[in-house]
C-alpha cells in the first residue's frame, strides 16, 4: 500500500522532521488518526499552527483517509488513494509525528503518558482521544468464524473485495446506512446479496415507513434480497462461514457475512484510564473530559447526553475543541444532524424529528411516476423534520430552515415543492397562492404527465362544461391515472370557475383525495400489492393512514390478490384480529360455526363445557341460529378455541366483515309444507361460502317454502324453495334500515342456486365499497345492473363464480385453529414486567 507509513521511515528521516530535539512547546498527543483526530488537528493548525507539538497515533497502518468513502472504494467507484484526506506530506509539512499501525494500549494520567502496542511510551501535556467507534457485533454463535466481518476499515474492504473475487453469496446483517452500502458494493462486485434486517423497514432511524418501503422496493429491483423483520439465530460453517440461519428457521448460504448492525463509542481506553464514561466519554462544551488535560472528540464522546455517529457533528466538535485549545471560548452546543446518502443511485435524505406527534403537521408529497416521496414535518410554523426520497435536492434548504428555526407560514403552501418553487413564488409578485402559480403557467405547460394533457386542454375541458374533478377526468383524462396532478387540476378548476367548482366524489377518508372506487380500480390496474405501495402510488397524505382507510385497503388488496396478499393484522378491527366479538366491558364473545344451524350432542356438550370451564356469564342463541358464549377474557380465547376445535367446531366468523351464517328452516325433511331440502342446501351454501372476507358482514338464509320461516327475504342473499325450484333474492337487510330483498331470478336446480350465490357474492366482493352492505350497494348500482351481470351474462357469471371459488381455496382455514395452535399467542398475554417487586 503506497501510503503505508512505516516507523523506519520516521527514524530514517528523523533529522528532517520539523521537531527540534528540544521542542519546548506543549505536546499534544492524539490517539486516533481518523476523521475526528485529524480534523481536530487541522482546526488547531488553522488557528495557531505553532502552538503545539503534535503526535498522532493510529491503529491502522495508513495516513488519514475518509472513512465514509469506504463504500465507493468497495463499489469500485474510487481507489484508496482518492479517499485519502491528508497524505504523508501533510504530516511532514506540519511537523506532525504520525505513529501508524501501532495502537495506543494504555493511558497513565498520573505520569501524563501513553503507551502503545509496540511498547512505545510518549509523554503528553494535552491528550486528545479520538478513538471513534467499534462496530457492534451481535453475540450469535459463529460470529467469530473466518469470513464474518464488520464494515469499518480498509481491512474489511480488502476482505470483502477478496471474497467478491470468488463470487458466490454474501449476507449483510443490518439494513441501516452502512449495511445497505456494503450490500450495494458487494452487489456491484458480482455477489448475490441478502440483507437481513431485524426491524420491519430499512433504515428505520433515518426514514419513515413510506420511504423505507420505497428503498426496499428499489433495492429489490436491483437484485438484492431484502429480509425485514428477520432475526439472526446463528452463523454456521466448518472452519469458514457457510451461511446464516434465522430464528424462523430460514437458512441463507453465504461465503461472506458482513455485520453492520451499528456502532458504539470506543471507550475502553478512556474507561481503563479512569475517565468519566457514560455511553461515550463525557465531555464539556470544549470537548474536555473529566481530566482537564485530556480531551476527546468524535464518535467516542458523549456531549450533553448525545452520542453522534455522523460526520457533521464531528466538524462542529472539532471547531469547538480547537477554539478551546487556543483560548477561544465559543463552546459546542450539540448538533442537529441530517442524513443524506445515495445507495445504488437512490437519493435519501432525512433531518430532525420526522416522527410527528402532537402539534405536528405533516406535509406529504408522493409522486409515484418519478419515484419521489417528500415529507416535511411542521410544528408551530417551523420545520422540525424532513424525509426526502428520490429527490433530495432541497434537503439542504429544509435543513437550513430547520436549523434557523425560520417561520415558514408564508411559504407553507409551496414548501413541499422545494426552494425553487417556493422562492420563485415569493419573488413572483407575491404569488404565494398555489392557484396563482397555476394561473401563470403557459397554456402548453404539461399538467398530467401520464396522459400528456396540457393546461390549455384542461382549461378547454372546463370551459366546455366540466365543473368537477371527475368531469375533468372523464373529459380530458387529466388526473385520471396516477393522480399526482390532482392538486393542479383542482387549482385550475378554482382558477377558471371561481366558486362554481362542484365538490368531487366523497373520498375514502381524510388521508386521500381518491374515492373507494378509484382506489379499487387503481389497485387492480397498477397491480399494487401492499398497503404502503397503495399509499405511495396514490399519494396518501398521512404517514400510515387511519382507522378508516387501513381496514379498507387491507380488504381491497385481499380481494384483488387471493392467496398472494399478506394480510395486515394491524389494519384489522379488533374483532377480526381477535377472532371474537369485543363487548362493552372489554371481554369477548365467541360463536362457533354450526353448519346451516344444525348441531349435535357432542357440540352442545363442548359448548356447555366451555361455558362452565371459563365461567362464561351468558350463552345465547343468536339471530342467525348460532350459540354465542359471552364474557370470555382475551387471555382465555386461545384455550376456548382449542376446546371447541377439539369437538370439531370452527370459528363462526360472527365478528367479521365476512360470511356470517346461513339460516335455515327444516325444509322437506320434516316440515309438512317444505318443498325442497332447504336445510341441506343451507349446509351446502355455508360449506361453500364460509371463511370468505367481504366488504361488510354478509348473511344468507334458505327457506323451504314460501312461508319463508328462515326469513330469507331480509338477507344479503336468500333462497326461497318452491315446487318448481329456487327463488333467489338479494340485497335484504334487517338492520337499521329494513329492506326486503329484490328477486334476482328463479333457477331450477340446487347446483344453479349455489353457482348464482357464488357469482353474486364475488360481484359484491369485487365492486362494493368497504363497509357497504348489499342493500345500499344494490340501491346505488340498481338491481338491473346486478341482473345484467349475474343472470343475463352466463360467461360473466361463470367467471365470477370461479374467481370466488379460487379465492375460497385460500380462505377456508379456521383462524381459531391457527391461534389455538399458538400463532400470535403472545398477543393474548400481557407483557411480563421484570423487577416489578423491588421497591
Amino acid at each position, binding site marked *: 500500500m503506497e501510503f503505508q507509513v512505516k516507523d523506519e521511515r520516521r527514524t530514517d528521516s528523523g533529522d528532517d522532521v520539523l521537531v527540534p530535539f528540544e521542542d519546548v512547546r506543549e505536546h499534544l498527543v492524539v490517539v486516533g488518526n481518523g476523521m475526528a483526530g485529524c480534523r481536530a488537528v487541522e482546526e488547531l493548525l488553522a488557528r495557531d499552527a505553532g502552538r503545539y507539538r503534535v503526535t498522532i497515533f493510529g491503529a491502522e497502518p495508513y495516513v488519514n483517509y475518509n472513512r465514509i468513502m469506504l463504500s465507493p472504494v468497495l463499489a469500485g467507484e474510487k481507489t484508496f488513494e482518492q479517499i485519502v484526506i491528508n497524505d504523508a506530506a501533510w504530516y511532514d509539512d506540519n511537523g506532525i509525528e504520525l505513529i501508524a499501525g501501532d495502537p495506543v494500549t494504555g493511558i497513565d494520567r498520573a505520569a501524563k503518558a501513553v503507551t502503545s502496542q509496540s511498547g512505545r511510551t510518549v509523554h503528553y501535556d494535552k491528550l486528545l482521544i479520538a478513538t471513534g467507534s467499534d462496530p457492534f457485533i451481535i453475540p450469535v454463535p459463529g460470529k467469530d468464524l473466518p469470513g464474518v466481518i464488520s464494515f469499518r476499515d480498509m481491512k474489511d474492504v480488502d476482505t470483502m473485495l477478496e471474497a467478491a473475487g470468488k463470487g458466490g453469496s454474501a449476507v449483510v446483517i443490518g439494513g441501516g446506512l452502512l449495511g445497505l452500502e456494503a450490500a450495494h458494493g458487494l452487489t456491484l462486485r458480482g455477489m448475490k446479496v441478502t440483507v437481513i434486517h431485524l426491524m420491519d423497514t430499512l433504515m428505520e432511524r433515518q426514514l419513515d*415507513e413510506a420511504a423505507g418501503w420505497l428503498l426496499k422496493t428499489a433495492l429489490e429491483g436491483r437484485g438484492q434480497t431484502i429480509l425485514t423483520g428477520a*432475526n439472526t439465530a446463528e452463523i454456521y460453517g466448518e472452519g469458514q462461514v457457510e451461511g446464516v440461519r434465522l430464528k424462523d428457521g430460514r437458512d441463507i448460504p453465504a461465503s461472506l457475512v458482513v455485520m453492520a448492525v451499528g456502532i458504539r463509542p470506543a471507550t475502553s481506553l478512556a474507561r481503563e484510564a479512569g475517565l468519566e464514561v457514560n455511553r461515550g466519554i463525557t465531555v464539556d462544551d470544549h470537548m474536555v473530559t473529566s481530566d482537564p488535560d485530556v480531551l476527546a472528540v468524535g464518535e467516542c464522546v458523549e456531549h450533553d447526553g448525545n452520542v453522534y455517529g455522523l460526520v457533521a457533528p464531528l466538524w462542529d466538535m472539532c471547531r469547538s475543541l480547537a477554539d478551546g485549545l487556543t483560548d477561544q471560548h465559543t463552546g459546542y452546543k450539540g448538533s442537529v444532524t441530517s442524513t443524506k446518502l445515495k445507495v445504488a443511485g437512490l437519493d435519501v435524505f432525512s433531518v430532525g424529528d420526522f416522527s*410527528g406527534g*402532537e402539534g405536528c403537521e405533516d406535509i406529504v408529497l408522493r409522486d409515484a411516476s418519478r419515484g419521489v416521496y417528500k415529507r416535511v414535518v411542521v410544528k408551530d410554523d417551523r420545520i422540525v423534520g424532513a424525509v426526502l426520497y428520490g429527490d433530495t435536492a432541497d434537503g439542504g434548504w429544509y435543513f437550513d430552515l430547520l436549523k434557523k428555526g425560520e417561520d415558514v407560514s408564508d411559504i407553507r403552501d409551496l414548501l413541499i415543492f422545494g426552494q425553487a418553487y417556493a422562492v420563485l413564488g415569493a419573488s413572483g409578485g407575491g404569488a404565494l397562492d398555489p392557484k396563482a402559480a397555476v394561473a401563470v403557467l403557459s397554456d402548453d405547460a404539461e399538467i398530467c404527465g401520464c396522459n400528456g394533457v396540457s393546461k390549455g386542454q384542461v382549461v378547454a375541458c372546463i370551459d366546455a362544461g366540466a365543473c368537477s374533478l371527475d368531469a375533468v377526468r372523464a373529459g380530458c383524462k387529466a388526473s385520471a391515472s396516477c393522480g399526482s396532478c390532482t392538486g393542479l387540476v383542482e387549482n385550475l378548476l378554482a382558477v377558471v370557475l371561481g366558486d362554481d367548482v362542484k365538490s368531487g366524489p366523497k373520498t375514502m377518508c381524510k388521508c386521500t383525495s381518491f374515492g373507494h372506487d378509484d382506489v379499487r380500480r387503481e389497485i387492480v390496474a397498477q397491480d399494487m400489492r401492499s398497503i404502503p405501495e397503495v399509499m405511495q402510488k396514490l399519494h396518501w397524505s398521512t404517514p*400510515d393512514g387511519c382507522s378508516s382507510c387501513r*381496514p379498507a385497503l387491507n380488504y381491497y388488496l385481499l380481494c384483488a390478490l387471493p392467496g398472494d396478499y399478506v394480510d395486515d393484522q*394491524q389494519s384489522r378491527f379488533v374483532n377480526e384480529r381477535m377472532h371474537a366479538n369485543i363487548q362493552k366491558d*372489554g371481554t369477548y364473545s365467541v360463536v362457533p360455526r354450526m353448519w346451516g344451524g344444525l348441531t349435535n350432542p357432542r357440540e352442545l356438550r363442548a359448548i356447555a363445557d366451555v361455558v362452565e370451564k371459563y365461567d362464561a356469564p351468558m350463552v345465547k342463541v343468536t339471530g342467525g341460529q348460532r350459540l354465542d358464549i359471552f364474557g370470555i377474557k382475551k387471555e382465555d380465547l386461545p384455550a376456548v378455541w382449542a376446546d371447541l376445535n377439539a369437538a370439531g367446531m370452527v370459528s363462526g366468523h360472527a365478528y367479521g366483515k365476512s360470511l356470517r351464517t346461513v339460516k335455515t328452516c327444516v325444509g322437506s325433511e320434516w316440515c309438512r309444507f317444505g318443498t325442497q331440502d332447504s336445510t341441506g342446501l343451507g349446509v351446502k351454501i355455508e360449506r361453500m361460502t364460509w371463511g370468505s372476507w367481504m366488504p361488510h358482514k354478509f348473511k344468507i338464509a334458505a327457506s323451504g317454502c314460501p312461508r319463508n320461516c328462515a326469513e330469507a327475504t331480509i338477507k344479503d342473499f336468500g333462497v326461497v324453495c318452491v315446487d318448481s325450484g329456487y327463488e333467489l333474492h338479494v340485497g335484504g337487510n334487517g338492520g337499521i334500515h329494513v329492506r326486503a330483498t329484490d328477486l334476482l331470478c328463479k333457477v331450477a336446480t340446487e347446483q344453479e342456486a349455489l353457482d348464482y350465490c357464488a357469482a353474486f357474492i364475488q360481484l359484491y366482493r369485487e365492486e362494493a365499497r368497504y363497509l357497504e352492505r348489499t342493500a345500499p350497494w344494490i340501491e346505488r348500482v340498481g338491481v338491473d345492473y346486478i341482473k345484467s351481470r349475474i343472470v343475463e351474462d352466463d360467461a360473466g357469471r361463470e367467471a365470477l363464480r370461479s374467481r370466488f371459488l379460487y379465492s375460497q381455496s385460500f380462505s377456508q382455514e379456521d383462524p381459531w385453529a391457527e391461534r389455538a395452535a399458538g400463532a400470535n399467542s*403472545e398477543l393474548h398475554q400481557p407483557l411480563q414486567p421484570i423487577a416489578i417487586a423491588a*421497591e
Partner: protein
Amino acid sequence: MTDWIDIGTLADIPQRGARTVQLSGEKEIAVFRTGDDQLFALVNECPHKKGPLSQGIVHGHSVACPLHNWNIALKTGEAQGNDEGCTPTIAVKEEGGRIWIARPMAMQAAA
C-alpha cells in the same frame, strides 16, 4: 434503575399495535408501538366508556378505540376532534434494548 420497570423489548410489541402490562393495581397499562417505532404508554381505558385501547387500530400517533372509534392521542392521552376526555399517560423509554416504564407513574395509574 429503581424508578423504571423493565417490561420487555421492542420486538415484543407488534408495529402499529400494543401489549398490556398488568401491575398489582386494578387497571392494565397499554404500551403502544407506532409505525415509526415510537413507544407510548397509557392506562388501557378509553376516557369514553373504558374501551381497551390496546386493541384499537394504531395510526400515526393515535389509537382508535375498539368500542366506539374515539381517537386518542398517544402522547397526551387526550381524545381528538370533537370528543373530550383524557386517559392518563405513563412515561416510557427504550434503553439498552429494553423498554422501561416509569414506576411511580405506572403504579399510580394502575391503582
